[in-house]
Structure formats: structure tokens, C-alpha cells
């Protein structure tokens, strides 16, 4: 895309979809994505990319207000100033059930896991619930 068209083009758009519904479709100045191996910030005119998401916080900054969501793995595709977030679940940070996450964390940690498969499941559940807890505890 040439500079002249992209300057006049609309702002960065962020679309969050889950298999059940389109959770969010909004314009944004800056989006922080929880990638598989760390956070990635995306601003306008980011180069096209496809990334694998981990469990963590998705922050969308538009002007002065920031919306925060917990995303549960999935993918992100950035192209032409559109960020598509494909995830299994996207929960608004304010509605995260911290108690349930804590309970799941304790329960998972206390359970014995044997074999690679079960260990992988346990690791996944632990990181899911830890990410939820982290987000719910963070001050707004």
C-alpha cells in the first residue's frame, strides 16, 4: 500500500472473533497482543503478520481509554491496518471470575499428572488460570 493512500485511510481496526460471535469490532490507536512467547504491540501501518496467541491480556487503546480482554489462545492476523484476533474465548477483563480461576489453579496444581499428554493439559490449565488471575488483579 502506498504512503499517500494509507495516510488518508481510516485508523487501525481491531476485530475480535470467537467461534460463537464477534466480540469486538473497534478502531484503535494501539493494540497489545498476548502472543505465544511474549507481548507484541501493534500500531498503525504494521507489517502484515500472522501470529499464534497465548493466554493473556489483549489491550486496545483508543485515544485515552483502554479496553482490556482476556484471550484464550488462538491466532492473530495483521494486514492492511486490520487486526483480526481469532480466539476460543474473549472475556472482558472486568467480568473475569477471579475466584473460579483461583479455584481452577489450585485444583489443577493439586492434581497428579502423569505422562506427556496430561502434563501438557495441566500446564495449559495452569497458564490459563494464572493469566486470568493476573488480569483481574491488575489495577485499572
Amino acid at each position, binding site marked *: 500500500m502506498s504512503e499517500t493512500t494509507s495516510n488518508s485511510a481510516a485508523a487501525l481496526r481491531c476485530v475480535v*472473533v*470467537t*467461534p*460463537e*460471535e*464477534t466480540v469486538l469490532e473497534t478502531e484503535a490507536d494501539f493494540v497489545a497482543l498476548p*502472543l*505465544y*512467547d511474549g507481548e*507484541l504491540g501493534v500500531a498503525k501501518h504494521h*507489517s*502484515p*503478520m*500472522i*501470529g*499464534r496467541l497465548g493466554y493473556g491480556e489483549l489491550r486496545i487503546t483508543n485515544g485515552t481509554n483502554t479496553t482490556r480482554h482476556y484471550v484464550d*489462545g*488462538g*491466532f492473530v*492476523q495483521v*494486514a*492492511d491496518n486490520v487486526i*483480526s484476533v*481469532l480466539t*476460543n*474465548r474473549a472475556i472482558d477483563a472486568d467480568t473475569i471470575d477471579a475466584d473460579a480461576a483461583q479455584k481452577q489453579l489450585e485444583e489443577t496444581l493439586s492434581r497428579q499428572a502423569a505422562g506427556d*499428554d496430561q502434563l501438557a493439559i495441566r500446564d495449559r490449565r495452569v497458564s490459563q488460570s494464572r493469566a486470568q488471575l493476573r488480569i483481574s488483579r491488575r489495577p485499572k
Partner: protein
Amino acid sequence: MANPRELDRRRKSIRNMRRITRTMELIATARFKKAMDRASAATAYTDRITKLVADLTKSGLAVSHPLLEPRDETKTAKLLVLTANRGFCAGYNGSMIRHGLKRWDELNSEIPECSAEVSGKKGIGGFKFRNVELAEAFTQFEDKPAYDAVETIANRYLDAYATGELDRLDIVYTKFESISRQTVTVETLLPLGSLSDSTEEEKSSGSDTIYEFVPSPESILEEVVPTSFKVKLFKCFLDAAVSEQIARMVAMKGATENAGELIRDLSMQYNRARQGRITSELMDLIGGVEALK
């Protein structure tokens, strides 16, 4: 000679039935609209996944994944049949059971070890009646199948496939094409075969953007393939739910119309019988008067 009182009683009971079927039709219509909204909301996700896969294949990556490759030897197979929990939807459950059993027989003749799973009370009953042992039965899917619930089932299949306990998965469901068209579909979901149904179409229309892959195309592919299986399965459940509501809507509409017709016929019979009785009473009277003269 028909008894007018008897006819009136029948007419009343049909009227009650018509009230019920009409209500059921309205409920099915409302549910259908909701299910339809959900199904179209889900396409936003599937479209994007398809696009992602298309972009991934365009990057020159050889798409290979254990889920995509057919097994050399198919030893175990599973059949999943999606039916409704409730009846009153014309041939919907019947045709699901019929096609399910047909595929079940085919699988049994080809593959040594088969197991069947059925969703929906009607299907469970139908399979039990024909003495087919069910490995698993689900009744939790109503008109709003939740992704989480479908994902649990999908994960179980994926695990079984990965460990070699399962070589093939077939599904029988009603595919929703349009409001006036739903077709019974028998599909093999595992092995997946290809990731997208319309690969050639995508190739010609796609843009030539070069993507950066984080962390690597292989890692993304590793995750995309199971996800697209899950989404495919979820789509089957959504389609089945929409089709069920449509089937019920049509069946109840037919029943309501039929009841109206019956009421009209009975009303005519009733009026005729009443008039006939009045006439014969008059004849009696006249006959009595004549005799007195």
C-alpha cells in the same frame, strides 16, 4: 347418523390441538431466528480461519499434519449422529437415524472396530431400539450448542486420533443450505483431508501480501489444523440446530393448517347433523298434527 354433540366435542379438541401446534410453530420460529443468528455469527470466525489458512499455504509452506493424512490402515472408526432432543419435527429425526444406521452398517462391514456416538434423545432411542451399542450419548445440545461443550468432545476425538485409538471419524447431520433447503450430510471429519473446501477459489482471489510469521509457520500450522477441526465440528452442531428448528417450524405450520381444515370439515358435518335433527323433529311434529286432524 352422526351425533352432533360428539362432533362438537371432537371439534373442540382439535381446536385445542391447533392452539398448541400454533404456539409450537411460533416458538420454533423464534428459536430458529436465534440459532440462525448464531450460525451466521460463527461464519465470521470460519471465514477468517479459511483466509488465514489460505495465506499460510501461499507462503509456500508444505501443509502437512498428522490430522490431514489418511491412515494406511483404518482399524477403528467412530460414527457421530446429530439428532434432536425433541420430536414434532417431521422426518428430521427419522432421516438422521436412517442415514446414521446405513453408514453404521457400511462402516461395520469395512472396519473391524466401530463405535457410535449419538447426540439427542430421539437418536439415542432410535439406535437403542435397533440394538446398536452407543459408546457415548449426549443430550446437552439444544437449540444453542455452546462452543465449550463442542470443544470438549472435539478434544476427545483429537486425543484419540493422536494416540492411534481412532483412525476415522464420520458424522451424520443435517446441513443447512438455505431456509428452504437442508440436506442430510454424511461426512468424514477425521482425517481432515484438506483444510479448506475452496482452495482454488482462494488462490485466484487472494492478495499477494507477504506475511511475517510469529513464532514460525510450522508452529501456527500445528495449532490451526486442530482449531479448524473444532470449528468444523462446531459448525455441524450449529447447522443441525438450525435445521431442527426449521423442520419443526414447517411441521407445526403443516399441523396447524391441517387442524384448520379438519375444523372446517367437522363444522360442516356438525351443522348438517344439527339441521338434520331439527328437520326430523319438525317432520315428527307435522306428522303428529296431521294424525290429529
